[in-house]
């Protein structure tokens, strides 16, 4: 069924179709309408779920963990400051191997206050053991939410479905909402091997000595590595069932491209237009969109960028003292490949500053005009 809905509602419909059983969430701009919609679904009886209206995001994650540990499919959503408050429990969710799915709306981190989009909040959680998907459109958001549950419950790691504040969260598009029956076939009920059970009592997460702790971490990394192919498979199956696949990374106009822009999230859509225009002018430029950030699909990215002479990474995020996070990760991915093209890292659009076609033109032109970057970070339009 096609419906005109916001990115946030696409998350809500995804959680509903996934038959999330426990939702624990706390309001925060620009995430709030995700949980408002879910609260309405629960109140109307459209969802058979318990909605815990917790008193903080820390408790949202803790309650989701408790629910998942007891064998219920758990969902939450947050943004910016709320995600940072959850940080301790994000480790707990991954370390305890709970396949919680979370809608995470990217928001700039205070101070000063920002409610607009920036990826630094979710990227600051990259080491917590959560899968991370960055979405470009509302359709991708709902499809990814469903895929995320399937992948998470296969590898027993939690997953974030990430979307830009306002540009996606509050912008409405036509979305094809899958039917419940097909979703039920795609995503069977959650049946964890281990859970809190009075008939089979175990102690979960006790003190672990150095003789075992190392192995627990090894297993998380193993699950992450396996997740790359599980994500691919879940996306393929989704495509077979619903006619849409999104890939781990997507190459756009990369045929014969000498320069590649690397983007994620909604900047990608703007960049597609710029690429179309420049290709029309005969400039050999293409685009690689990174959808899956954790696990980082190193081989897919390296392969997508093979043969290009220069790479320009557009980072709407910052790791202070280094560069943009995608830039850093892609450099790392390319290090082990025979070709190591010059990589230009552009940090732009922070705190929701508009990234327009003109901005992306400037990025592309700078990359075309230089053999190699003159700075570790290239700031676009910064008022120095």
């Amino acid at each position, binding site marked *: 069924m096609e419906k005109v809905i916001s990115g946030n509602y696409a998350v809500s419909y995804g959680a509903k179709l996934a038959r999330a059983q426990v939702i624990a969430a706390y309001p925060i701009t620009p995430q709030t309408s995700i949980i408002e919609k879910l609260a309405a679904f629960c109140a109307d009886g459209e969802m058979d779920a318990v909605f*815990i209206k917790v008193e903080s995001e820390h408790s949202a994650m803790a309650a989701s*963990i*408790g629910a*998942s540990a007891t064998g219920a499919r758990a969902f939450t959503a947050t943004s910016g400051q709320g995600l940072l408050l959850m940080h301790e429990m994000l480790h707990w969710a991954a370390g305890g191997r709970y396949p919680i799915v979370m809608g995470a709306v990217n928001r700039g981190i205070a101070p000063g206050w920002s409610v607009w989009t920036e990826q630094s909040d979710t990227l600051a959680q990259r080491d917590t053991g959560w899968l991370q998907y960055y979405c470009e459109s509302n359709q991708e958001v709902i499809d990814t939410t469903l895929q995320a549950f399937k992948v998470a419950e296969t590898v027993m790691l939690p997953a974030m479905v990430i979307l830009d504040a306002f540009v996606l969260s509050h912008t409405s598009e036509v979305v094809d909402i899958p039917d419940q029956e097909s979703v039920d076939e795609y995503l069977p009920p959650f049946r964890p091997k281990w859970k*809190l059970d*009075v008939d089979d009592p175990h102690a*979960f997460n*006790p*003190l672990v000595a150095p003789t075992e702790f190392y192995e627990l971490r090894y297993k998380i990394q193993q699950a992450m590595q396996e997740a790359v192919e599980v994500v691919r498979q879940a996306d393929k199956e989704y495509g077979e069932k619903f006619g849409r696949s999104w890939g781990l990374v997507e190459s756009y106009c990369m045929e014969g491209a000498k320069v590649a822009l690397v983007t994620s999230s909604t900047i990608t859509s703007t960049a597609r237009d710029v690429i179309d225009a420049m290709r029309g002018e005969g400039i050999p430029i293409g685009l690689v969109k990174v959808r899956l950030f954790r696990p980082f699909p190193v081989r897919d990215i390296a392969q997508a960028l093979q043969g290009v002479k220069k790479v320009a990474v557009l980072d709407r995020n910052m790791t202070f003292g280094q560069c943009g996070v995608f830039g850093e990760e892609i450099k790392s991915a390319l290090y082990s490949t025979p070709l190591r093209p010059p990589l230009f890292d552009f940090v732009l659009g922070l705190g929701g500053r508009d990234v327009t076609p003109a901005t992306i033109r400037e990025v592309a032109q700078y990359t075309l005009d230089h053999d190699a970057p003159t700075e570790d970070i290239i700031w676009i339009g910064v008022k120095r």
Partner: protein
Amino acid sequence: MSEQPLLGHRPNYVLPERELLYPGHVACPGCGASLSMRYALKALGDQTMVIIPACCWSIIAGPFPYSSLKTPIYHTAFETTGAVASGVSAALKVLGKKDITVMGWAGDGGTFDIGIQALSGAVERNEDFIYVCYDNEAYMNTGIQRSSATPRLAWTTTTPIAHPKDEPKKDIVAIMAAHRIPYAATATISYPEDLIRKFQKAKSIRGAKFIHLLAPCPPGWRAEASDTIRLTRLAVQSKIFPLYEVERGMQYNITVWPEPEIPIREYMRLQGRFRHLKEGQIQMVQEEVDESWAKLVEKAKGK
């Protein structure tokens, strides 16, 4: 006071026989917290799930792959007992599993201090579980640092004798009562009949329940391990830890009347943490105890 019911001294009372605490746990000798768990689980039975945040009990329960309980245990982060128990309770509800008791089991640090937000949230939402605070009156697991449950003038490593704790102990049951919690109670191990009755009552009530247990810590209180039971009895008799319950945040009921009534000095003199107190300071504590007790009796009369 002899006309008052002495529920703490019922003759021929037999404890439930079933043990759900294994022998061989790793509590210190004389640990009030381990005996508290033993009685609590005797009262609740094996259809119980226990949520334990960082506290002495995260050690007592045993390291991986051991467990000192015959019930499931969920070890969680320090400040999350109220929230995790809410999630467990919600999952049991949605999965249609009735008649399972969820018990949060936290120390005073995890309850009075770092966990009070999650506790307050859970109680305000009237989540269906029993939250137990076993109160040993300081951060004992990290080595005796003051918490907001530490009594006034007590020594701890962060309130040294040169400057013992200035502030009175937080009144956690009053805080719970202010939430209009369906059931809140105090209990302690020297009155096991009273303790078990309160746990069983809590189990029978839907919604949020809070039980505050006084649990001596011999190393932290600088007391003899053999005095643990004596200390909890003296705490009740001296009225520094009265045994009572509150229903719906309104109806107070004193369940064990102090018998005999004793001065606070007799409770304090067995504990090294109070050894530095001067006569005037002990008198000051006595006055505070008397005042609090008088207010409690007033509330109980008003029922």
